[in-house]
């Protein structure tokens, strides 16, 4: 027995101390992760070694330029002659990275082409699975290498250390990365040790060589993501914004034959295979993240294949070729030509073909790209969102010239838009719409199956003009290449101008199309047209260049625009000046806080939540600070967020609750009321009784603000008014609870395609002038008082006893009437006026005259001008009341069939009368669902009234006033009617 014990002790001692430890897995404080990817080497001119650098950024001028450049003072920048990469400073939260240490910028060296939002390390989907780095070390071993090593633990699991080293050598075409992680917990884990790439939509698109995929990936939700995992030899991504600001990246393993992960427009994950990691188990993940200045993914994929050759001995071949266009043309733009090289033959089932690379031919049409050797390929040439030519090449074992690919001719359209009276050239937005379904079929396209489907597809829907079927006109002129076909082309300059239309047969070759627009006497004096919710390239989910973004403000003839990029403060002032718009357009610096990291738990619901989105303005813009001065907005309730933000305002603060009932995205709620499952059939509790309902109004610890201390709430969001019925219902609930918030109407535009800036908009009655004399203090105060109308065209002028609507209570005189005048442009039909008291429609004035010619430049704009007795509207009302007036198209009857927590009824309309029988019931619900759909009013067909409005907005005319707050018992206070008064 004694010998046995001795043997045991000896073995243990040998085992526990005698093994070679790797990197930082043994936990020493001064450890160093070994240089990653030792088998990978690139060569370059010796002089380029001088450019190898690593240092903290000490001036914002060192930030890599581009659509997503975000590195700032304190972050660490590594660079060589080929690559710039910025590692977020410790303590700096960005997007899904909880505490810094992730890649914030990655771009070709010295170019304004950073298209990366964030690359971070995770082992799973939950917040606890993200790396939470707490220290950063700069390693300067020049001339051999420079590196940054970050150490920490999983977020919320301190027993799991994780260390990542980012490294550049002098000739690297990308960043070498090695992550080491040790399961120091006592739990058996499933880990998916991956890099997360946060695209977030409308940005870079991931491309992976997977059967039937390429740019198109299996769709999944949070609960089905496990089934979306694929194995792939590498993956790449490229941006699809302006031709001048895009680049590509590719990821290849330095140790494994394949990577495993999933891809979507929102996020990619790529790394080690999912595996069981027992306590004391460790993983090492080494990879090379290549960067290339290419417009397709091929530049980065060429590097990935070179890495695989060096690591695995895998051979590649180079394919060359040329695209040409009938009638001649230049290329060097993805919309003009894009070539995809796909493993397979023309007889191979599409689901079995493997796309290996994609490229954008050079200006003269020539191209080259690497692909694995020894395979058969189909080469597809695409243009304007459609496959034009495909050809097969069998068993390509050596470098091959693919020959020429001849594309069909296109029209080259020049546009001119002028003001009718003065003939001055104006900014505008053009919409091209095929004249019928046959024409649609000829030109409908997508960007290799991604983003929106457009007809015609003139360019990436997410990017610069032309985007999708839209073209921005600056100073009256624009050009665009357009596929052959017959189109209605609309010229738009905001809802208070005429709309012009030309039907054009595009035959190939140059054509000129001219439009004449006239401003209509619709916008009242003393009113500013404002869009309070707009995104541009600074947002993680937008890649429209700043110039196009600002031009779109002018195209919609807005007076005021608040920049509300997600999590990042943005200032458009310089672009406004560059475009010469400073005398007509005021842009205000703001941001939209956007919860990424779920943390909040509410009674009865097991999943952690985020608090949704809030707009703040005016905010101090300081690019030397993280997020350009935006607040750290994670893991706090709204009131705490308001507290964090209060010192960031530059003037009169304004806070807006955005899209309060929008659908969650990837498990992240977009609106606080929906996140906490508010029940609109119940009143707000008097205090914090711990219920979900109480979360809305409670004042969280450490805050002087209540969670509902916002000043306004979006009632209309988006050009199609998609969830108007729900946003309106919550606003009405809020008013009926005495929580008086201004209702607003915003586009929430992220591109030229998703929503049109200024549609809808707010007409704010303010003492502030527009242009250089704009006064944000006066503007915000007017908004806080509810002196604004939300509209996508109709104008409602309503007064009671000469008093306009606002959130200030007043006692109307006996026998008072509501004077109402509704007017609109000829192309914006207003069919009815609705009077809502305490949320209930009390009166509808229908049958309003419809303009005969939507393109008329003269004629009456008034659709109704009359009075309604207030007593008629208040029949049956016993206490104080609020009154809102709406005008536009009739809405569908809607009801609440469930939709709350565990399917309970929550007072929120979720289903419309879809069978048209006058009752909202189970028969209206889509097969297989429990509630819904919540449909919009039927869209008019070509030739029907309102068709032209719908053609360019995909929505319906609508306007609403802010409420008249009626102190009917004249006691000097507004006594809210309560939830019963707000029921729909």
């Amino acid at each position, binding site marked *: 027995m004694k010998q*046995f014990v001795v043997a045991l002790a000896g073995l243990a001692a040998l085992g526990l101390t005698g093994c070679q430890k790797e990197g930082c897995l043994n936990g020493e404080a001064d450890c160093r992760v070994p240089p990653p990817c030792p088998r990978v080497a690139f060569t370059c001119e010796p002089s380029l070694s001088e450019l190898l650098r690593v240092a903290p950024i000490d001036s914002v001028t060192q930030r890599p330029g581009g659509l997503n450049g975000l590195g700032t003072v304190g972050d660490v920048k590594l660079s060589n002659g080929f690559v710039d990469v910025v590692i977020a400073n410790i303590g700096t939260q960005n997007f899904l990275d909880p505490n810094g240490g992730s890649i914030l910028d990655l771009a070709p060296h010295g170019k304004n082409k950073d298209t990366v939002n964030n690359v971070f390390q995770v082992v799973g989907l939950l917040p606890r699975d993200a790396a939470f780095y707490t220290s950063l070390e700069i390693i300067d071993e020049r001339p051999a290498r420079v590196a940054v090593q970050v150490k920490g633990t999983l977020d919320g699991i301190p027993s799991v250390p994780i260390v990542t080293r980012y490294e550049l050598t002098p000739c690297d075409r990308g960043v070498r990365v090695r992550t080491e992680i040790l399961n120091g917990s006592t739990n058996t884990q499933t880990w998916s040790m991956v890099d997360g790439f946060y695209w977030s939509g409308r940005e870079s698109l991931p491309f992976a060589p997977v059967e039937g995929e390429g740019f198109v990936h299996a769709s999944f939700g949070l609960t089905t993501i496990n089934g979306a995992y694929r194995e792939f030899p590498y993956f790449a991504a490229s941006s699809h914004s302006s031709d001048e600001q895009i680049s590509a990246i590719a990821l290849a393993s330095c140790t494994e034959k394949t990577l495993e992960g999933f891809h979507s427009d929102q996020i990619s994950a790529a790394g080690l295979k999912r595996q069981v990691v027992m306590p004391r188990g460790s993983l090492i993940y080494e990879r090379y993240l290549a960067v290339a200045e290419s417009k397709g993914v091929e530049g980065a994929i060429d590097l990935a294949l070179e890495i695989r050759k060096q690591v695995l001995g895998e051979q590649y071949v180079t394919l060359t070729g040329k695209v040409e266009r009938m009638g001649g043309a230049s290329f060097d733009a993805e919309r003009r030509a894009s070539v995809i090289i796909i493993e397979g033959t023309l007889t191979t089932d599409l689901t079995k073909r493997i796309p290996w690379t994609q490229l954008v031919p050079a200006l003269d049409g020539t191209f080259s790209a690497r692909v694995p050797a020894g395979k058969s390929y189909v080469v597809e040439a695409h243009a304007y969102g459609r496959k034009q030519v495909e050809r097969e090449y069998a068993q390509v074992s050596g470098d091959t010239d693919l020959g020429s690919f001849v594309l069909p001719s296109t029209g080259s359209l020049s546009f001119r838009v002028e003001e009718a009276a003065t003939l001055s050239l104006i900014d505008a937005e053009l919409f091209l719409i095929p004249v019928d379904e046959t024409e649609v079929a000829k030109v409908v396209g997508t960007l290799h199956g991604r983003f929106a489907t457009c007809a015609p597809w003139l360019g990436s829907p997410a990017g610069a003009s032309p985007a999708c079927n839209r073209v921005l006109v600056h100073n009256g002129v624009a050009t665009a290449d357009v596929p052959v076909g017959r189109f209605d082309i609309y010229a738009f300059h905001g809802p208070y101008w005429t709309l012009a239309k030309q039907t054009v047969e595009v035959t190939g070759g140059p054509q000129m199309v001219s439009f004449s627009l006239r401003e209509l006497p619709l916008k009242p004096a003393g009113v500013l047209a404002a869009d309070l919710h707009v995104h541009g390239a600074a947002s993680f989910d937008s890649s429209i260049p700043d110039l196009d973004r600002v031009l779109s403000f002018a195209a919609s003839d807005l007076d005021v625009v608040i920049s509300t990029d997600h999590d990042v403060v943005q200032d458009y002032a310089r672009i406004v000046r560059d475009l010469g718009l400073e005398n007509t357009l005021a842009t205000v610096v703001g941001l939209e806080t956007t919860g990424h990291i779920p943390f909040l738990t509410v009674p009865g619901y097991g999943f952690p939540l985020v608090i949704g989105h809030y707009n703040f303005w005016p905010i101090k813009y300081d690019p030397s600070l993280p997020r350009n001065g935006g607040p750290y907005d994670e893991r706090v309730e709204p009131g705490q967020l308001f507290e964090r933000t209060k010192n960031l305002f530059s003037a009169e603060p304004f806070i807006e609750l955005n899209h309060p009932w929008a659908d969650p995205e990837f498990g992240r709620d977009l609106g606080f009321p929906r996140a906490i499952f508010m029940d609109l059939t119940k009143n707000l509790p008097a205090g914090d009784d711990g219920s979900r309902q109480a979360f809305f109004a409670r004042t969280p610890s450490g805050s002087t603000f209540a969670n509902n201390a916002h000043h306004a709430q979006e009632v209309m969001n988006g050009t199609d008014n998609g969830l108007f019925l729900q946003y309106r219902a919550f606003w009405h609930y809020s008013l009926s609870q005495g929580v008086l918030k201004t209702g607003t109407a915003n586009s929430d535009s992220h591109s030229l395609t998703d929503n049109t800036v200024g549609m809808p908009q707010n007409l704010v009655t303010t003492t502030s002038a527009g242009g250089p004399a704009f006064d944000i203090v006066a503007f915000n105060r007017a908004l806080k008082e509810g002196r604004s109308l939300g509209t996508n065209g109709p104008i409602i002028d309503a007064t009671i006893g000469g008093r306009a609507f606002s959130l200030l209570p007043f006692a109307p005189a006996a026998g008072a009437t509501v004077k109402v005048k509704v007017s609109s442009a000829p192309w914006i039909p207003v069919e009815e006026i609705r009077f809502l008291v305490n949320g209930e429609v009390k009166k509808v004035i229908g049958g309003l005259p419809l303009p005969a010619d939507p393109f008329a430049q003269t004629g009456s704009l008034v659709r109704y001008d009359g009075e309604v007795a207030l007593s008629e509207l208040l029949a049956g009302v016993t206490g104080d009341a609020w009154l809102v007036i709406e005008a536009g198209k009739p809405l569908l009857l809607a009801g609440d069939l469930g939709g709350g927590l565990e399917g309970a009824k929550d007072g929120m309309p979720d289903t419309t009368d879809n069978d048209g029988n006058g009752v909202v019931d189970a028969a209206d619900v889509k097969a297989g669902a429990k509630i819904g759909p919540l449909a919009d009013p039927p869209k008019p067909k070509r030739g029907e009234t309102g068709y032209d409005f719908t053609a360019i907005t995909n929505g319906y005319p609508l306007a609403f006033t802010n409420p008249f707050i009626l102190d009917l018992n004249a006691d000097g206070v507004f006594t809210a009617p309560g939830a019963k008064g707000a029921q729909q």
Partner: protein
Amino acid sequence: MNALVLLTFVSLGAEPTPPLACDAWQSKGLNEGPAALGYAEADVATGRRACPRSEVGLGARFGAIIDTPDFYGSVNVNGLLYGSWAVRSTTEVFATLEAVNFNYAVNAVLTSTQLTLGNMTLGATQVLTQSETFVGSVSARLLLPTSFEIPGARLIGGELGASGSWRPKEWLEVHGYLGGDLSGAIGRAASLPRGGVVLVAGAQLTPFKWGGLVLDLTGRLGPLSYFAPTVAFRFAIGKVGLELAATRPLAGTDRHTVIGGLRVNYRFD
């Protein structure tokens, strides 16, 4: 032969010696001592029986953690080979091998599985004292680095323990075990040595020669701690024994929802 023995006793005029505790077990095949079902690798931190015996067996162990609020779950299934050899009446060597080790873990909706050779222990028991109703033993176990289940590491460890078995009645065994174990990883990462002390106390009721019931209480202190009752049904058919056991922690840091086991063994001696 029996007649010859009887003749010898009679001729010597001596009384027959009562059997010692280990020899007084009711049935050859029936297992004895604490239920052989634990929370750690192979048979680590399970109560070792006090009496040596020679046997071979096959077993299966199933453990599950279902922690829905934490979006976590895991399942571990082992196919066991085990055996012991009573070198002499007071000494036994024994071994347990997780011949098949299957792990499944869920992290939110991500899942993975693993099938490997599992852990193996090799140990010995020495009886220190024995009377007609009581036997006291010490045992030692080595956890050998046979398993491939830990990425980048092999597990090694050992355990020392003392067992006691009190058999006041033919149908009752009161048993106990006190052990201390230590394990750590051999590999590229930190060893993360972890130890623990386990105390098992329980009883086996054997109303029939063919079957009995074991009720144990186990307490363990260490990074993984638990206080857990274990129930086991034991059956015997000749020299074949069968044990069906289950346990779940009532307190401590261990997160198991339930652990179950089935063992079938054949006794040689």
